[in-house]
């Protein structure tokens, strides 16, 4: 599905993914994608820096009028996203 701007997140979404994450979403924002989807379906673990990156992505996306979406989060990842109140910044699919 080429028209969907999806970022497939890794099993561990933490600092180590920062650079890749930033360059991917920057490319999507530059291409004026109407929405950016973060696919958590394979993510087993995310830490606070991942949440930080998500907040930053949201801030930048908002400036471009791009909607941010969370897809496929389960288990601990879903719980952490809930705890972090990410539903205030992201649409849950």
């Amino acid at each position, binding site marked *: 599905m080429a028209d969907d701007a999806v970022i497939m997140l890794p099993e561990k979404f933490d600092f180590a993914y920062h650079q890749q994450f930033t360059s991917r979403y920057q490319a999507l924002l530059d291409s004026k994608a109407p929405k950016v989807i973060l696919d958590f379906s394979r993510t087993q673990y995310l*830490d606070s820096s991942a949440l930080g*990156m998500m907040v930053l992505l949201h801030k930048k996306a908002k400036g471009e009028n791009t909607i941010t979406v969370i897809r496929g989060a389960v288990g601990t990842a879903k719980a952490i996203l809930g705890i*972090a109140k990410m539903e205030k*910044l992201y649409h849950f699919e």
Partner: protein
Amino acid sequence: MNYREDDTDSEISLKSRHVLVIEDDIGFNQTVCLFLEDLEVNTTGAYTVAEGLEKISNSHFDFILLDGSLPDGRGADFLIGLSKLDLVIPVMMITAEEDQEQMAAYFGMGVDDYLLKPVNFGLIWLKMRRLYRAHIISIRERAKHKKLQELLNEKHLEEGLGRHVYKHLAGEKKELDHIIKSSMQSSGSFNGDFFLSLQGPSGNTFLMLLDATGHGLAAAISVLPQVAIMRAMVEKGFSLPNILFELNKKFNRDMPLDRFVAAVLVEIDHTLGELYVWNGSMPDVLILDNAGKIIRTVCSSHMAIGIMEPEEFNASLETIHLSGGEHLVLHSDGLVEQIGVNKQVFDTERLAQTIERCDEVGSLFDFLLSEFESHRGAVGLGDDVSLCYINLDLLTSHIQNQAQIKCLEPKKQGHIDLTVTINGDLLAKADILELLNSVMNQSQVAVETRQTGFTLFAELVSNALDHGVLGIDSEIKNNHERFIEYLELREQRLQNLSNSDEIKLHFNYNQSKGQIEFEILDSGAGYDPSSINTNDETSLAGRGLALIKQLAHSVECPSPGNKTSIILNEKK
């Protein structure tokens, strides 16, 4: 006449073979030998029965020319002696006898052909060649037959092994027979379809129906690792997407490109009353209400397992809220592609109509099978055919009963306590999180708790190291514009660790309480946690601390703030 052989197959040629000529007429014997020698055949002459038997016992011969009457006996005496030696050599008689009964008896004793004297040498040669060729071909046929028998035996043994493994892997559960029903019919000697139902540690039920490319053992080779991975991961409490990623990754890595497995994977959360379905290139999954009406179908929305590269693979699931009384029907394409006696296909529409015609949903499975059988009559199966039926209400009450029985079982009693101190360079090199994860794994901590624990420990260890030991201002770490600065600073300070730089961990797991106590102490100066505002969702600062507070049962960080103690309770 040209007697030269034109055979390209040297094995069936008499050239360079060794022929024994048993003939008491010295002149005739030598003439025959010379004639054959001229055709590049090796010869040895013998003049009596005894001499013939002696030569054949001591040397190898490929062909025997035998006279019917010799000074010390008849041709028959030689043939009796020959049969005792257990040699298979073509024998042609050259005899003056015209007694047909005697000739018939010779044939019975193993003679392959005969010629009457006086003989035409050209005819001797033609007959010898033909006999020898037939002899070699028959030896080859026997060898081929033997090889074929061996292969068939081997195949039979392998299939037996496969069937055993299949049966073992499926782990049939008799008590669920009336709740989860499955029929697997194989079009070949072996099935490429496989159905498995498992229960995870959280009480969720997992179902998997596979349809591998090909048939027989080739298909089994695709199926077996999938089943093994599924079994192991369900047992450890992994979620369906995690399992799917693993199945796809391993298959993609280990199997040839032209192999893949179409699959339906289902997870049933009995507590939430939810059904999660992943359909990769299988026919529609059918969900029926209690009246047997199809209320929902989940069509394939993914490629089969093994095709996509791990980073492209999509494990997103279809979620279905159950309102009670539902039934689930899974099947492979073999069912809806089967040609019937009327030359028509038992297609999806016919399947839906058959389901509609069934009066009692409880007997749907047997009804479908018998309708399928009468459709196909004596027509052979075109493909492996599998049909699975699950009564979701009965399954849920079965699982809940089981959980109640489990509650009455005596509680687990184990206990593990561990203190670890890491200092100096090892702070930069040792994977502290992996260490803690493996301790939790070995302590049989439930997967969900382990994942929460991992998240907590990751935050605590990174705080202790970055802010405590390395003294990096949290402002730099939390400001993504300054991320590179943070990384450089971290790298630089990690290079200059001394033995007074230290992190001390205390891990305690109490199985009966279902509780993990964890304490982390760093050699840093400490900080005041109350200075961080954790209430602002859009702020980057304090996110880690907020997470810790939410995930842990209790958090303590006494002054000067270089020690944090948490308690994590296992989910009941």
